[in-house]
């Protein structure tokens, strides 16, 4: 039974988004995704200043089981990558929506928030996937 906070938005590829007070977006992978991956041992996050397109892989998370690309839901510029994950990648497992955040990004104007799911829609998606 995965945790799906109602105040966040989600993608079909199991990322979550949180809008921060300054208008930037905080992005990570969902509880469902961390559970599927198992114990995470590495997380490669982007550097501040990197420009991303919507759908572009911006991070790689690697567990004992497999390496997985993480996709940016929006076009924009990275304002921060979570450097703490270098020494504590397991924060993604234990606190996927908190300390496990991967990057913060300033979305490009008119940026595509089109394909985002609500918490209810995401819950339905993972239920259909058998999770």
């Amino acid at each position, binding site marked *: 039974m995965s945790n799906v906070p109602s105040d966040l938005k989600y993608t079909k590829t199991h990322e979550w988004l949180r809008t921060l007070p300054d208008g930037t977006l905080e992005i990570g992978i969902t509880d469902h995704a961390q559970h599927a991956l*198992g*114990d995470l*041992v*590495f997380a490669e996050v982007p550097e501040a200043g990197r420009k991303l397109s919507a759908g572009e892989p911006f991070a790689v998370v*690697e567990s*004992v089981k497999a*390496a997985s690309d993480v996709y940016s839901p929006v076009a924009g510029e990275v304002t921060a990558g979570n450097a703490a994950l270098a020494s504590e990648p*397991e924060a993604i497992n234990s606190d996927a929506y908190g300390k496990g955040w991967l990057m913060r990004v300033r979305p490009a104007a008119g940026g595509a928030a089109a394909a985002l799911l609500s918490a209810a829609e995401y819950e339905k998606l993972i239920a259909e996937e058998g999770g």
Partner: protein
Amino acid sequence: MTRHTPLFDLHQKLGARMVDFGGWDMPLQYGSQIAEHHAVRRAAGVFDVSHMCIADLTGARVRPFLQRLLANDVGKLKSPGKALYSCMLNETGGVIDDLIVYFLGDSWFRAVVNAGTRDKDLAWIRRHAADFAVEVRERTDLAMLAVQGPDARAKAAGLLSPAGAAGALALEPFFGREIDGWFIARTGYTGEDGFEIMLPAADAERAWKALNSAGVVSCGLGARDTLRLEAGMSLYGNDMDERTNPLESGLAWTVALEPRERTFIGREALEAIRARGPGRKLVGLLLEGRGVLRSHQKVLVPDAGEGEITSGTFSPTLERSIALARVPAAAAGAVQVDIRGKPQDARIVRPPFVRHGKALLG
């Protein structure tokens, strides 16, 4: 039709994530496989290994039978209860399986073979046993638990009667004995001390729960793999198979070519390979940077050619990636591994990677 061990229901109750292993529904992890790994290195963990096949071999000629069947020599087993690790080879020197055999009596040996190869192994064993009038009895009535770690033997002994506990704690490494109706052996697949316990299926759940109550952590196949790889132990199907011989699998030490008169299956082929020099060998690899080495990744060896990773993982004790790889015989020192299209630096090392719970290499 996936098979279940006698502990299947208990694994569900304990919240295990299950995975198919060799046709068996087995626990991969109960929570964090890295936490389970550390529990075995630091304290004690328990594994369900009931999917493995226990076969009792009986008959007046069981010893000469095994001297023909196995690449290692059961002639070394003089004391009752002593165990031997060996490969079973085909006529071309390829490995059919690796197994442990226990000398239990003049007319009785017990073999434990891998789960994924049990049908193939039993057919092969039965075929050759017929020549020696040896009976092969699969012990499907038994479950098997591995209790491993520095505290494992003491915790497991706590399940036995006082006399039984004393007997179990007196067992020397690689010896087994029937105690309180259970067969207890001081063997394992983690690089830690501990027991493997073969017990009536009906006792398994009670024993597991008693171990949990004594603080022994439930551990799954995920931790089992990271532990055995740190200990430099081979996994059949990954590190060797029917197309590879022991000499190129890091298992030359398990082949007893003395006495010369012992004509075990595969001997001639192995001697020919040995004479011309095996072109490949199995080595340990340590990844220098971040990332995870995985089976089948290509190994690039300067001036020597290419090899392949046979088993790779992230080592929780070393906090970096380790692997076993089959490489050209001349390979040494620094190599590169193709990880998702990018060459990453690694170096060849001699396993094991961990001993007595501590990293051996920096």
